[in-house]
């Protein structure tokens, strides 16, 4: 089944073309990594999936229907920063989603409903390895713990699509390896489709089922404004990863291994993209 | 706008001749007379004299305490027909011209004079200059707020000042201060009044009667040489920020009309007309009778004998002896 369909989408800011004729279908439960040079429009693309921005041309379908014009609980998001609320405790951050959904007037649950919700939140926190930190504030957590918290917060809403914008870009390598494992487990267990922007090709190969690259095919200064980036590469990771099933591939990542050693095992097969005849500069292993 | 009504608002500000109003409100004299006529009177104290007149002029108050000059230049010039109900006192030394390091009024020529511009002090200065053959061209007037006069006098660049009590007595006590001219030199020209909106008064004569009743009962008490009188004077002194002795010193420079008959006699005397003529001429010179006023006659002033000075079709300021007469007759 196809979760997200992007049909000939263009995005322009004033005169500047940022993205041009992007076509993409993402299957349900896929894990798409979006890579590309800085400024090529990855975040802009994610913002369109989120409903925060409208495409200038083309359309986006979510499970066959047109995308709602603004962000909603069906699409979760985790950014590199600002993804948790600094004024809520860890527990409060995880509970707030269901609270907001359930109590439209005060955005708070009381009594038994609250206790049940807190229970659920606690087990979600245990899932992401934050048990015991329930009463801390985000500023008291390390960067890695904050991003785990952001994941827990988003997952409480059981979104159909999870959008990640360089969620682990600011983390230390060791911590990043830990959170990669967590991410993989969550994707296996929770029925969701994931689209993740990353700068780190290795991260892409470690996590994704499919890697999509955006690139500006004409990048001479005088062309910058008139031509935008588009999809230049589309690689299925091999051996194929399937949500809920462990592959030989995943067995490579041994617990305790630091990222210096978990390398050199990624391969891919290139799909046909409309733009692939231009694509020459995108490095692939 | 006015019609018979039963609730009235009276404003008064802190000045020696008006302190009885505050005391009357506190001591229950106001309520006593209001009850007698079946009305309610709310008395409000102002620290800022001008604000009290502004409030009256804007219609927020039915009656207010002010001087004859300000009555003409502010509410009357502002189109509010105003009647002087009670002539409470006139200044007999409360206002003074003070020179530093000279006892001779003539030495004022060429100096900067600090005073509240367009107030009775300004008028007193004009009269003082007149008396020695000078005019305002011979000095430079600097507007200065009254609460800061005492401090101002102690600065080096201030050498001449016109102001009123209690400031005058404070300044007189300072080294180098000489009172060279005061309101006792122009007796009866600076008059402290309780005025009321003419329409309100016409429609509600009981209001005027109550005001007269309050005033004369309080005044009689405060001039009495009895323990009660002393207590009243002490209370008024405290309310004006000083003590009994300080207040009595100010009273000494005030010709208070505690006896209604004296007030009636003062009001009916032809001197009042002369005084008001001086004043309206002064105001006209200063452009204070309204923008574009063609002459001092623009505003009609009705005297107690019903003669009108100025424009009879635009009478906005009236003197009436009616209520004081009732008090004198014991008919309240």
């Amino acid at each position, binding site marked *: 089944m196809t979760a997200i369909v992007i049909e000939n989408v263009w995005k322009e800011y004033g005169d500047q073309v940022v993205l041009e004729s992007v076509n993409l279908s993402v299957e349900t439960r896929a894990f798409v990594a979006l890579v590309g040079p800085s400024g090529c429009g990855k975040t802009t693309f994610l913002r369109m999936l*989120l409903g*925060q921005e409208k495409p200038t041309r083309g359309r986006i379908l979510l499970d066959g229907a047109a995308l709602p014009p*603004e*962000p*909603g*609980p069906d*699409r*979760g*998001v985790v*950014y590199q*920063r*600002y*993804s948790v*609320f*600094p*004024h809520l405790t860890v527990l409060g951050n995880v509970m*707030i989603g269901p*609270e*907001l*959904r359930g109590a*439209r007037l005060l*955005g*708070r649950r009381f009594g038994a409903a609250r206790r049940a919700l807190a229970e659920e939140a606690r087990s979600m926190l245990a899932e992401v390895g934050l048990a015991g930190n329930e009463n801390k*504030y*985000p*500023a*008291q957590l390390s960067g890695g713990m904050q991003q785990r918290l952001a994941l827990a917060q988003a997952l409480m*809403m059981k*979104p159909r699509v999870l959008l990640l914008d360089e969620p682990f870009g600011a983390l230390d390598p060791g911590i990043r390896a830990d959170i990669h494992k967590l991410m993989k487990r969550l994707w296996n267990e929770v029925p969701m489709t994931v689209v993740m922007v990353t700068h780190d090709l290795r991260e892409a190969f470690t996590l994704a089922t499919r890697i999509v690259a955006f690139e500006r095919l004409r990048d001479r200064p005088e062309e910058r404004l008139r031509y935008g980036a588009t999809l230049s590469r589309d690689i299925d990771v091999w051996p194929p990863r399937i949500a809920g099933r462990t592959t030989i591939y995943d067995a490579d990542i041994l617990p305790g291994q630091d990222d210096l050693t978990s390398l050199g095992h990624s391969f891919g097969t290139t799909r046909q993209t409309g733009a692939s005849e231009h694509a020459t500069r995108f490095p692939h292993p | 706008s006015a019609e018979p009504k039963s609730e009235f608002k009276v404003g008064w500000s*802190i000045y020696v001749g008006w302190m009885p109003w505050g005391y009357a409100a*506190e001591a229950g004299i106001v309520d006593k007379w209001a009850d007698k006529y079946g009305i309610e009177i709310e008395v*409000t*104290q*102002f*620290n*800022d004299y001008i*604000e*009290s007149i*502004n*409030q009256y002029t*804007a*219609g*927020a108050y039915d009656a207010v305490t002010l001087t004859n000059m300000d009555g003409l230049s502010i509410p009357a010039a502002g189109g509010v027909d105003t009647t002087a109900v009670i002539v409470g006192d006139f200044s007999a030394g409360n206002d003074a011209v003070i020179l530093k390091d000279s006892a001779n009024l003539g030495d004022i020529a060429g100096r900067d004079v600090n005073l509240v511009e367009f107030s009775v002090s300004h008028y007193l200065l004009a009269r003082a200059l007149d008396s020695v053959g000078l005019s305002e061209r011979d000095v430079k007037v600097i507007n200065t707020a009254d*609460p*800061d*006069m*005492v401090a101002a006098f*102690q600065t080096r660049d201030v050498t001449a000042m016109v102001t009123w009590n*209690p*400031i005058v007595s*404070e300044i007189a*006590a*300072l*080294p180098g201060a000489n009172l060279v001219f005061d309101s006792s030199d122009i007796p009866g020209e600076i008059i402290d009044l309780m005025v009321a909106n003419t329409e309100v008064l016409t429609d509600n004569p009981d209001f005027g009667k109550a005001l007269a009743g309050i005033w004369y009962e309080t005044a009689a008490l405060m001039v009495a040489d009895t323990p009660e009188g002393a207590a009243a004077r*002490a*209370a008024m002194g*405290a*309310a004006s*920020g*000083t003590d009994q002795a300080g207040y009595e010193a100010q009273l000494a420079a005030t010709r208070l009309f505690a006896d209604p008959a004296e007030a009636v006699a003062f009001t009916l005397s032809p001197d009042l007309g002369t005084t008001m003529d001086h004043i309206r001429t002064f105001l006209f010179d200063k452009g204070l009778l309204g923008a574009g006023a063609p002459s001092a006659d623009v505003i009609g002033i009705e005297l107690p004998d019903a003669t009108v000075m100025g424009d009879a079709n635009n009478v906005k300021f009236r003197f009436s002896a009616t209520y004081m007469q009732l008090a004198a007759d014991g008919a309240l």
Partner: protein
Amino acid sequence: MRLINRHPGRAARLVLGSLPFLAIVLVYLAASATRLADNPGDKLLPALSSFARAIETMAFTPDRRTGAYLLWSDTWASLGRLWAGLGISAVLTLIAGLAIGVLPMVRALLAPVIAFVSMVPPLALLPILFIALGLGETSKIVLIVIGVTPFLIRDLSLTVASLPREMIIKAETLSASTWLIALRVVLPQAMPRLIDGLRLQLGPAFLFLIAAEAISADAGLGYRIFLVRRYLSMDIIFPYVAWITLLAVAMDLGLGGLRRLIFPWWGMEGRR
């Protein structure tokens, strides 16, 4: 070693910090002694004994007229007005600041007029205020409100508008409506800034209070100062000014403590 790297110790800091206060006191005493030697009746810079006497009279002797202890009744009258004014300002600021910060429509509607109004000198409009509202407590409180609210609103709406856009989007993905975003995401993050804004506006608030009391009142700290100013009773004015300053400093510290107590998370980020 460079001066920039020389940090005084704890004791040295205490000593240094109290030096200027000491200097002020000494300069005062010297000036006062000189003036009093010139003119023993001088009222501008009274001797310490005059202060003691005045404080005794104002704070610890019941007034003969009313039986009240003047300093305390003045203080309560003023603080009541001040707190009412600041309280109303805070509520208005929360509502308007939040609305302006959160809703683009309201921002377009109100931001220009508030920027303009914050530049109007409120004291010049006093007569209108008094006539519209009477001379009671209302007009004094409203003067404080008018004086401080535009600044508070501007400050708060800037704070709200500078919340990361990502945080709002995040709340939307957690199914929050505009109302719930305002209530549960923006409001709690705006509150600490509001408290700090109030602290900054304490000085102006006292100023407006004093100005209002100078015009019409029968009790209050500003009323008393203006009443005795005609007599240049600096022996009363100085203690009153010192008292006002102390009250303001205490409220400043109190609000600061309150902020830290209620919003422990505030400023954690910066401190890391």
